[in-house]
C-alpha cells in the first residue's frame, strides 16, 4: 500500500487529523462533565462546527473564511449549518423548523456544490444528491436516537475517511482535508460515546453534506483514473447501517446487531478504497510540501 509523502502525513496530523479528533473528544467530555448526558446531541453539533472552524484555520483551507467559488469552502459552512438545523430538530424539539432549515441548506448546496453540468444532465443528479444526504443524515440520526452510542458516528466517520481516501487518489487535497475534518471529529465523538452511551445523532445530517459533497465535487473535478464506482460507494454505504432500524434487527443481541449493521458498511467502504487505490497512484508529482 502506497502512502502519501511523509511531510504531507505530518502536516495532516498537525492541522486536521489531530485537532479534529481532540476537539471531538474534548467537547464531548466537557459537555458530559459540565452539563450532563442529555446535552450529548448538542455537544456533537458544537464539536463538529468547532472542528471545521479550527481545521480551516490551522490548515489554511480557506484563509478568507467566507465561501469562495471553490466547492469545498461551501461544504464547510453547509456541514455546520446542516448540523445546527438538526440540533433544532433534536435538541429544541422543533422538527418542522429544523427540517425546513435543513432543506434551505440543501438548496444552497445544490446551487453552490452541485456542478452546473450536473444540474440538467443527468436529470437524477440533483434529486439523488439531496435525497442521499437526507437519507444518510436523518436515517443515521434516527438510528442514533433509538440506539445511542458510537455506532452511527463511527459509520459516518468511516465513510468520510474512505471518501477522503478516494478523493486523495483523485488528486484533490482540499477535499481530503474537508472529509478528514469531519471524519476525525466523529471518530473522537464515537470514542467518548462508546463510554457515555450518549446520542451524537444531530451531527450527522450536517456531516452528510460533507460526505456527499466531497464525493460529488471530487468526481466532477478529477482528472484521475479513479472509477465512478469508487465515488458512489462511500456515499451509499452508510445507508446499509439503516437495517438497524428494522425491528427484527433491533431486537438482536448487541453484538449480533453490531455485526449486521457494521460489517456490510465496512465491506462496501473497503471495496471503494480498494478501487481507488487499484486504479490510481497517490503520487502528486510533488515530492514534498
Amino acid at each position, binding site marked *: 500500500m502506497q502512502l502519501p509523502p511523509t511531510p504531507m502525513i505530518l502536516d495532516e496530523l498537525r492541522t486536521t487529523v489531530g485537532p479534529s479528533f481532540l476537539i471531538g473528544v474534548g467537547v464531548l467530555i466537557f459537555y458530559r462533565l459540565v452539563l450532563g448526558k442529555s446535552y450529548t446531541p448538542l455537544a456533537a453539533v458544537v464539536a463538529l462546527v468547532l472542528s471545521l472552524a479550527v481545521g480551516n484555520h490551522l490548515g489554511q483551507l480557506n484563509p478568507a473564511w467566507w465561501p469562495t467559488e*471553490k466547492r469545498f469552502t461551501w461544504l464547510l459552512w453547509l456541514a455546520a449549518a446542516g448540523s445546527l438545523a438538526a440540533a433544532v430538530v433534536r435538541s429544541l424539539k422543533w422538527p418542522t423548523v429544523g427540517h425546513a432549515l435543513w432543506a434551505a441548506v440543501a438548496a444552497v448546496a445544490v446551487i453552490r456544490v452541485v*456542478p452546473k453540468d450536473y444540474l440538467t444532465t443527468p436529470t437524477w443528479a440533483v434529486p439523488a444528491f439531496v435525497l442521499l444526504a437526507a437519507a444518510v443524515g436523518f436515517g443515521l440520526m434516527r438510528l442514533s436516537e433509538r440506539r445511542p452510542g458510537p455506532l452511527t458516528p463511527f459509520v459516518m466517520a468511516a465513510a468520510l475517511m474512505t471518501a477522503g481516501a478516494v478523493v486523495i487518489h483523485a488528486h*484533490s487535497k482540499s477535499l481530503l482535508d474537508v472529509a478528514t475534518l469531519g471524519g476525525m471529529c466523529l471518530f473522537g465523538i464515537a470514542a467518548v460515546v462508546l463510554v457515555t452511551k450518549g446520542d451524537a445523532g444531530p451531527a450527522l445530517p450536517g456531516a452528510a453534506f460533507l460526505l456527499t459533497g466531497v464525493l460529488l465535487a471530487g468526481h466532477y473535478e478529477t*482528472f484521475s483514473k479513479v472509477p465512478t464506482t469508487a465515488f458512489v460507494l462511500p456515499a451509499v454505504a452508510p445507508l446499509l447501517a439503516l437495517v438497524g432500524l428494522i425491528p427484527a434487527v433491533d431486537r438482536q443481541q448487541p453484538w449480533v446487531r453490531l455485526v449486521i449493521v457494521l460489517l456490510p458498511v465496512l465491506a462496501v467502504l473497503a471495496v471503494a478504497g480498494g478501487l481507488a487505490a487499484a486504479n490510481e497512484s497517490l*503520487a502528486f*508529482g*510533488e515530492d514534498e510540501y
Partner: protein
Amino acid sequence: MVRWFLGLTAAVAVSLSATAADKYKLDGDNTKIEFTGTKKDGKHVGGFHKLTGEVTHEGDWKIDVTIDTNSLYSDDEKLTGHLKAGDFFGVKDHPTATFTSSKIEKGAKGFTVTGKFTLCGKSKEISFPAEITTGDTFTLKSEFKIDRTDYGMTYGAGKVDNEVALKVTVSAKK
C-alpha cells in the same frame, strides 16, 4: 457629383486602410505561455499547449488571447492532474483563461503591456514588461510574476509560494 465622387473615394480609402491593418493570428505553435511554480525546496514548470488569439494594429496595438486550460501540462503527469483539479486551476469549472490588453506603451527600456487577465473566473488588471518587434512577424518576449491567490488559488498556503513566474514568447507571422 464631384462631392459625391470625393466622398466615395474617401470611404474606399478608409475601408482599405482598415482592412490593411496589421493582424497576427496566435496559436499554440507560435505562442508559448509557460509557468514556474516554486516552493521551499523546489520548483515545477508547466504551460499550456493550446490557445487562440490575435494581435491587431489599428492605430493602437491590441492583444487578445484565450488559453485552453485543459491543455495544461507540467513536468510531472501526476502533478498535471492535480493542477487541473479544483485545488488549483479547476479546469472543468473554468475551461479558459483570457488576456485582453488595454494599453501597450513604449518606454525607455521596452514596452509595458497592460490588460485584463482572467483566470479561474477572476479578473485582474496586470501590467508586464515586454520586448516587442513588429513587421512581417510579431514577436514578444516577457517574463513576469503573478500572485496566484489573486485568482482564488489559495491551496497550499505557506507551502507553495503565492508568486508564480510566467514566461510568454510569441513569434507570429501576418
